[in-house]
C-alpha cells in the first residue's frame, strides 16, 4: 500500500547557476524524471524539497531562508554543487554559505561542478528509498 501514500514528490529549484541546466535536463525524455512521480513546481507551499544550487549573496540567502520558512512540513533540502557544499567560487573569502549551512539541516549532498543529470536522479532515488537493484 505504500505506493499509494507516496504518490507525488514536488521539487522547487532556487538560485541561478550552472547546475540548474543539468537539473532541468532530467526533465527531458532521455532521462524522464517524471517516471518516479517527481514534479518541478514554482510555489513554495506546494514543495516538499528545496534544491539549493548556484551563487548567492547576502540578499539571496535571506530569500531562500524565507522560501524555506514558507514550505510546509515535512520538508527537506538538497544541496547541489561545490558552490553550496564548499564556498562561492568567485568570492572565496565570504562566510555567507557556511552561515547558511549552520542555519538549516541539509539532507542530501551532491558533489560535482556541475554534477551529471544521472547523479541528480540517483540522489532523488536514494532520498525516496527506491532500491537501485
Amino acid at each position, binding site marked *: 500500500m505504500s505506493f499509494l501514500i507516496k504518490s507525488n514528490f514536488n521539487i*522547487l*529549484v*532556487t*538560485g*541561478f*547557476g*550552472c547546475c*540548474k*541546466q*543539468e537539473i*532541468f*535536463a532530467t*526533465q*527531458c*525524455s*532521455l532521462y524522464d524524471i517524471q517516471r518516479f512521480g517527481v514534479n*518541478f513546481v*514554482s510555489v513554495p507551499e506546494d514543495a516538499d524539497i528545496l534544491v539549493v544550487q548556484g*551563487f*548567492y*549573496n547576502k*540578499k*539571496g540567502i535571506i*530569500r531562500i531562508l524565507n522560501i524555506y520558512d514558507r514550505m510546509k512540513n515535512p520538508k527537506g533540502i538538497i544541496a547541489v554543487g561545490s558552490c553550496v557544499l564548499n564556498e*562561492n*567560487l*568567485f*568570492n*572565496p*573569502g*565570504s562566510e555567507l554559505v557556511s552561515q547558511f549551512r549552520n542555519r538549516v539541516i541539509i539532507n542530501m549532498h551532491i558533489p560535482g*561542478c*556541475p554534477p*551529471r543529470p544521472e547523479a541528480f536522479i540517483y540522489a532523488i532515488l536514494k532520498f525516496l528509498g527506491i532500491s537501485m537493484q
Partner: protein
Amino acid sequence: MADNIYNKIYSSSRTVFLEEIGEKLKSILKDKIEYIRRAGLDLLILVSKNNLYQVIKELKDNPDFKVNSFQSIAALTNGKKIYLIINLKSFDNDFSVLLKIEISQREIEGDYREIIEMLAKFYRAVKFYKHSGRLISDRCDIKILPRSIEGLDCFDLDILVDNDLIREAYVSIEIARIIGDDYYKDLKLYNLIAYISRFDWKAGIFPEVCLCEALEELLQLKVTERAQHIRMLLCELYRISNHIYFISNICNILQHDIAYNLSLLERERVLRIIESITGSRIVPNFIRIGGVKKDISEEIMVSIRKSLPVLFRNIRRIEKIMTGDFLLIERLRGAGIISKEIALEYGVSGPNLRASGIRHDLRKVKDSFLYKDLSFTIPVGKSGDCLDRISVRFNEMLQSLRIINQIINKFPEGDFIKKINVSHPEFKSSEISYGIECPHGLFKIYLEADKNNINSLLVKGPSFNSLILSEEILAGNKIEDVDLILASLDISPGEIISS
C-alpha cells in the same frame, strides 16, 4: 624590432585603419588627453576627469567619428589605483574606443555618480546605471521576483501598468552581485582557465577561447592550423547547443510540450559529442595557451560525421512543428519589437541585433580565426520581433551545421599544441582588449599584464546590454508577454554576474 615582426604577422587593413583614426583623434584632441594607443581591437584613451565632457562631445558630434553607441562601464583596479573604463562604439565607422579615467581613492562613490550624470546627457542607455540599486518598490504596481526558468532567474522586475499594458519597467540586479573584487589575483593561469568558463555557462567554451587568444596575442604566438580547426569545431557545437536550449526555454514558456521535449533531446545529442571531445558537458577546461588540451581521434570524427545528418533532419523537424502552429506564430509576431536605431544605441550585439535587420557578425569581420576560408551566410531578420529572433537562431544553427561539415571535411594534419612554459610565461607588458562572437553577441575581455602575471581583468558579456534594453522594449507590451520577451533576448546569467 619585435613590434615590427608582430605587425607583419598580423598586418591587416583593420589595424592600419584603427591607427589612422587614432592619429586623427590625436590631432584634434591634442592636450585634452594623456595618450592614445591601440589595444587589440580597440583604441585606448586615457583622459582626466575634468576633460571628459569635451572629449565625449567631440567624439559624438564630429561626423568623422560619430560614436553613437554606449557599450559598458566598469571599474578596474591596478595596483593601488582605481580606474573607470567606458566602452563606446561607432557603428557607422566601425570602431570602438575605451576611455580610461582615473578616480581618486577617497571619493569613489561621488566621482562615479558625477560621471554617470554626465554620460546620461549623451546616451540614453546610461539611465539604467542611474537608478540601479534603488528600486521603486514603493510605488510600483506589480513586482516580479526571479522565476525558475533559466535566464530569468537573476534579476527583479518592477512594473507600472495601464490596464493590461506596461507603462514602465525597471530592472534590478541586486541579487546577482556576487563576484569578489580580486578573485583572479592569486590564481595561477591554468586555474583561471578552469574557472572562467563559469562566466558564460550556457556556452562554456567562449570565455576560454577569448582569454587564451588575448594572451596569445600578448605572447605573440601563432596557433597551428589543426588547433584552430578544433577550436572552431567546438565553438560551433556549443553555438548549436546554446541555441537549441534557447528554443526549449521558449517552448517551456509557451507550454509547447512536443517541441520542448524534442529540442532537449537534440541538446543531449550535441552535448554528448562535446563530452566525448572535451570530457565535460558544461565546463570544458579544454583550451590551452598555444593550442588545445587533447587531440581529436578518428573515432570521434566518424561519430560526428554520422550524427550531422540526424541533427540537421531533427532541427528542421522542430522548426517545421513550430512554424506550422499558427496559434504560436500569432502569439510571437509583433511582441517586443526592437527597432534598428534603439538596438544600435543600446549596444546590443549578436542574434538580437541581426534580428532587427543589421548584418553584423564578428566571424566575418575579424580574420584571426580561419572563418574566412569557409562559406556560410549570416541570417538577418526584418522587423525585430520575437518571431524574427527565433527564426534567426534556427537559421544560424543550420549554418553552424554547414560550417562543421566543411571543417571536418578538410581537417589538416599537424600538431595540436605548441609547448610553452605555462607556469612562468613572459608577456609583453601592455593592455589588450579582445572580442569574440559568442552565441549571445560580442564577448569581450580587457586585461592588463606586466612581465609575468595578469594585473587586472575585466570580463564583459553581451547579455547585460540586452537586459538594459529590455527596460525600453517592455513598455507598450502586454503583461502576459513579459516572460516571453525576456526569454527571447537570450540572457545568460553568467554574464550578468560578471559586470
